[in-house]
């Protein structure tokens, strides 16, 4: 127990770094994922094709491979970063955006057909139908799965710890090496801090889900 209290500043720093990685990648992924979903339902065949291939490949890529690519292969190809955080954010947001795109697309599919028909019958174009009528409703219905994706993102950011980024998991590994006799306490501490992030998000997800269920 002492080892946790002694290292509290490290835990705190790791928590902040994990939060930073998750928030930045989460925002990028949300924007990118929404655009990918829009491309997936658009009339332009090339956009549809691109979006389909991107989502299909990224969704089936193990996260570690994405990280390995961003952190180890990319620098060898001449793309260098000042910090490995950038590589982590690239890997996390590219990976998560594929899942967001799938969630948004399923939301688009869940909007009643009449909504789109009504919008088109009053003369709206594709861009207007999507941005004014369909997406606002679609995004609302997919908030609970979206939060689950963000929870997964927080947990996935732990992989960054193995690729030269010092976040919660990275610090945890360091502390475990430094305090070989109290590994269990150190790692349980790390677990506690992860739960501090994921459990409230999970509660939020189920609350929102219940609210949406009532509204429908």
């Amino acid at each position, binding site marked *: 127990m002492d080892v946790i209290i002694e290292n509290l500043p490290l835990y705190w720093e790791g928590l902040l770094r994990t939060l930073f990685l998750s928030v930045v990648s989460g925002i990028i992924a949300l924007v990118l994922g929404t655009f990918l979903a829009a491309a*997936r*339902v658009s*009339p*332009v*065949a*090339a*956009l549809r094709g*691109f979006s389909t291939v991107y989502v*299909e*490949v990224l*969704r*089936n*890529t*193990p*996260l*570690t*491979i994405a990280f*390995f*690519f961003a952190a*180890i*292969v990319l620098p*060898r*190809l*001449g793309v260098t970063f000042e910090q490995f955080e950038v590589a982590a954010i690239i890997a996390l947001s590219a990976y998560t955006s594929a899942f967001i795109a799938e969630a948004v697309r399923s939301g*688009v*599919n869940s*909007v*009643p*057909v009449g909504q*789109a*028909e009504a919008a*088109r019958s009053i003369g709206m*174009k*594709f861009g207007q*139908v*999507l941005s004014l009528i*369909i997406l606002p409703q679609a995004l609302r219905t997919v908030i609970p799965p979206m939060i689950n994706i963000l*929870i997964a993102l927080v*947990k*996935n950011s*732990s*992989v960054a*710890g*193995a690729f030269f980024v010092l976040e919660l*998991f990275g610090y*945890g*590994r360091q502390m*475990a090496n430094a305090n070989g006799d109290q*590994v*269990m306490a150190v*790692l349980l501490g*790390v*677990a506690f801090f*992860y*739960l501090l992030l*994921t*459990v409230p998000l*999970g509660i939020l997800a189920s609350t929102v889900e219940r609210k949406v269920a009532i509204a429908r």
Partner: protein
Amino acid sequence: MSSVLYDVPGPKARRVSLIGSVIGSVLIIGLLAWIIMTLAQQGIFEGRRWAIFTRGDVWMLLGNGIGATLSAAAIAAVIAFPLGLMLCLLRISLVPWIRIPTRVVLEFLRGMPVVLMMLFVLLVFGTSSFIAVVAGLVLYNAAIFAEILRAGIQSLPKGQREAGLTIGLTSFQSRMLIELPQAVRRMMPSLVAQLVVLLKDTSLGYIVAYGELLRAVQVMADFLGNAYLFPIFFVAAAIYIAINICVSRLAVWIERRGSKKAAGGVAKAEAAAVETAAK
């Protein structure tokens, strides 16, 4: 749905769409060409770098990596499913002092990064990395399987359980004979989708030094020299992604088949029929 979003394109819209497609394709091809040029400048495409794939031992190492990946995934899946089933039964138990602790354990396991569990098992119990990988995967996925099955049981019409109890089955018998079989069938797509996640998560074994596919890549790159990193990584990633896409396709196929046969009751079948008609 997508066809409802816009008109059947007329000549003008088709022209615009065609131009857009051409420009988009040119951009993507340009980007790919730029990447290939950059790679070529670094000599990535020199024959000697790829010539290593004519060597048997490279394929043998890759094969070992794939074998290690698949065996960890298979063993973890086989253990995780029954465990998930058990946890699910405990989670919906009528006895509060069984139900509530199980719920806490499940929340704990679900809120935890898998790689942290692997590291925990590896360092605290001092096991081999294989056991650490399998244990991490089992703990996490059993919790997820339990939640999926619970959702399946809760989605069943109430009458199923009531009927079971009425004909004199005990609560446990009703769960095992009436509710679980239907829940498993109904949740098959989610369960298979979770198997894909499990397979993907074996790659986390790289972090706890388990000799799976990615670790094999790293070892070979260290051994043969960094010049070979890209070719080996490229081939290994392609293999990994191909395996995953196959399992994902299987999940989609099961889902389609399920909705056609309308597993899980009349109410569901009608809803599904309406949905497909709407699309």
